[in-house]
C-alpha cells in the first residue's frame, strides 16, 4: 500500500464537480483507494457520497491510500486531481 498526504487545491473544496471528477478517477483506477481527512474519518474514495460527507474544504489536509497493482501510478494521478483547482 502507498499513501500520501496533500492539501486540497479546489477553490470550493471537494463538493459536487471536483468530488465527481475525483471519485470517477478513483473508481476507474480499479485499485482499492481510501481517503482520510486529517482528524476525520476514512472513506472509500470511489464513493461520491463518502467523499462529500467528509466536508473537505479548500486547503484541508487529506491522506490518500492506494492498495493494489500499479498503486504508485494511481496515487500520482489521484494526488494531481486533489491539488488541482477545478473551479477556475
Amino acid at each position, binding site marked *: 500500500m502507498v499513501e500520501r498526504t496533500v492539501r486540497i487545491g479546489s*477553490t470550493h473544496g471537494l463538493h459536487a464537480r471536483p468530488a465527481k471528477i475525483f471519485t*470517477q478517477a478513483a473508481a476507474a483506477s480499479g485499485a482499492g483507494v481510501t481517503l482520510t481527512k486529517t482528524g476525520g474519518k476514512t472513506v472509500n474514495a470511489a464513493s461520491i457520497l463518502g467523499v462529500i460527507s467528509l466536508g473537505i474544504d479548500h486547503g484541508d489536509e487529506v491522506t490518500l491510500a492506494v492498495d493494489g497493482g500499479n498503486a504508485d501510478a494511481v496515487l500520482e494521478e489521484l494526488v494531481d486531481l486533489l491539488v488541482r483547482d477545478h473551479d477556475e
Partner: protein
Amino acid sequence: MELSGIGIGQGVALGPVIRMADPLPEPLDAPSGRTPAEEGERARASLGAVAADLLSRGERAGGAARDVLEAQAMMAEDPTLQEDVTARLAEGKTAERAVFEALAAFRDMLVEMGGYMAERATDLDDVSQRVVSHLAGLPAPGVPDPGYPFILVARDLAPADTALLDLGTVLGLVTSEGGPTSHTAILAREKSIVAIVGVADAGRLVDEDEIILDAENSVVVSGPNAAQKAAAESRIAARAARQNAPIRPGALADGTPIPLLANLGSADGAARAVELGAEGVGLFRTEFLFLGSTSAPTVTQQQEQYERMLREFPGRKVVVRALDAGADKPLAFLNDADEENPALGLRGLRSLRASEDILREQLTALANANAASDADVWVMAPMVATVEETRYFVDLAHELGLKTAGVMVEIPSAALLADRVLQHADFASIGTNDLTQYTLAADRMLGTVANLQDPWHPAVLRLIREVGEAGAALGKPVGICGEAAADPLLAVVLVGLGATSLSMSAPALVDVRASLARFTLAQARQLAAAALQADEAASAREAVKAVASAFPEPPEGLGSSAAPEPTEPQQTIPPREVLK
C-alpha cells in the same frame, strides 16, 4: 400581492403560474413481503435505471448541467449508498423505504454541513424521488407540460429539470428555495432564463394565477392590474427589440463614448463576444493556462495562446490580467502555504512578486504576442495594495516591452491613494467584486454574508469615485471589470463616478449598451450623486431609480410605463480608445 426574492438577470415575464407537482409521499415503513435478496434486486435495478436516465439527460443538456447530472448518477450508484441500503433491507424493509431512508440520511448530513454542501441536498432529494417513483412504476417527477406558455413555480428545481427546460413554453421560473449560488440560479444565468429564486412566500402562488416576474427588481407581482401588465409587456417588447437592435459602440445619449468590453477566461469565448458587440477585452484572465499544471507553462506555450486570442481583436484593446493566483485560486508552484485568511494572504501580485521569474516569463510572452498581432495589449496587475507595488509592476512591464501597464483596484488602499497610484500606472481597472468584499469585510464565497456583497453600497461607490476623479485629473483611463458593470443601471452610475470603459461577460452587453444610450453624462453624474448620498446599498438603488425616472425622457425598464426607445444620432466612435 408582491413577493420578493433574488432576481437572476434582467428579464421580465408575464404569464400564468403552473406549479411543479408536489413530491411523492414518504414510502410507508411497513415490513416487506419479499426477501431481502428480492428487495435488493429491485433496489439495484431502479437505482441503475435512474442513473442511466440521469446520464442520458446530462448528455442531452451538455454544459454545466452535464457535470451535475453525472454527479447525481454517481450518487444513485454509490457503493456507500448500496451498503447502507443493503443493511436496511436486512432489517426487513421494502426497497422503497430502504432507498428513501438511506438517501435521506445522506441528505440530512449535507444539510448539517451547511454552505455549498447544503445546496447539494436537492440533488439527493431528486435522486430519491426518481428511484421511489421508478420502484412504484410511476413516471419520473418533472416539469409539467400544460401545452401553453407558463411561469413555473417550484420549491427548487432539480438540475435534471432546469437543464431540460423547454424555453419555448417556460416563460420564467420562481423558486421558494435556493440562493444565488444554487444550481438553479447558476443554470438560469447560463441559459438566460428569467428567474427569481429564494421567494419564501412562493407557496401562496396557485395554478393559473397571472403573475409578473420582474427579475431586474427581484419582485413577483401576483394579480397585476391593467397598467402593471401594460408596463410589463412594453418592457418585454423593449427587451426583445434590444436583443435584435443593431450593435453600436457603447455611448451615452450625448455621444460620449464608453467602450464596452468583454471579460474572457480563454480564447474560446472571443468570437461570441465579438458577435455580441464587444469592442475589445477589458479583462482577460490568464489562470486557465496555469491551472492544472504543477509547473508554469513555457514562454512559447503562453505566447501561442495569447496570439490565438489577440487574432480575434485586430485593432482593439485587450487588457490582460497577470496571473491571479492565491486565495480562491491556488497554484502549487506559486503558493502552497496554508493560510488562515487566504483572501488576505499571498495572492495576486504579491505571489507573483515572490516568484518573479514566472511574472517575467508571462510579461515576455505577452510582449512577444503583442508584437506579432494587430491588437493593442494592455497588461494589469491583480491585487495591488500600494504605490510601491504599482511602480514595481509598471516598471517591470515597461522594461519587458509592454507599453501600457496598469493596476487593478480591488483593495480599498489602492482606491484611497488612486491619485498617487495613477501617477505611475497608465490606467486603472476596478474589480468591483473584490473591492466590495474588502470594503465590507464580507467573504464573496459565503452565502451567509451575501447581503453585504452588494456593489451598490455607497462606501464602495465612494472608493470608485476616488479612482474616477484621479483618472480624470491625470488623463488616465479607468475601467470597471467586475459584475457591477453588468448591471445596466449601476453601469450608468459607474460612468457618472468617472469610469471610462466597462467590461462584463458578453451576454450582458446588450442591456448595458441600451441603458447607457438613455442618459447623458450630466445625468449619469446626477445619478452617481444620488447613489453617493444614500446610507445603504438598497436605498442607493432606490434613489437612483427615482432620479432616473424623473428625467424628462423616462427610461423604460425602470418601472415606468411604455416609453419609446430614444432615437439618438449615430455617433462615430474611434475604433479604439486612445491613451492620452
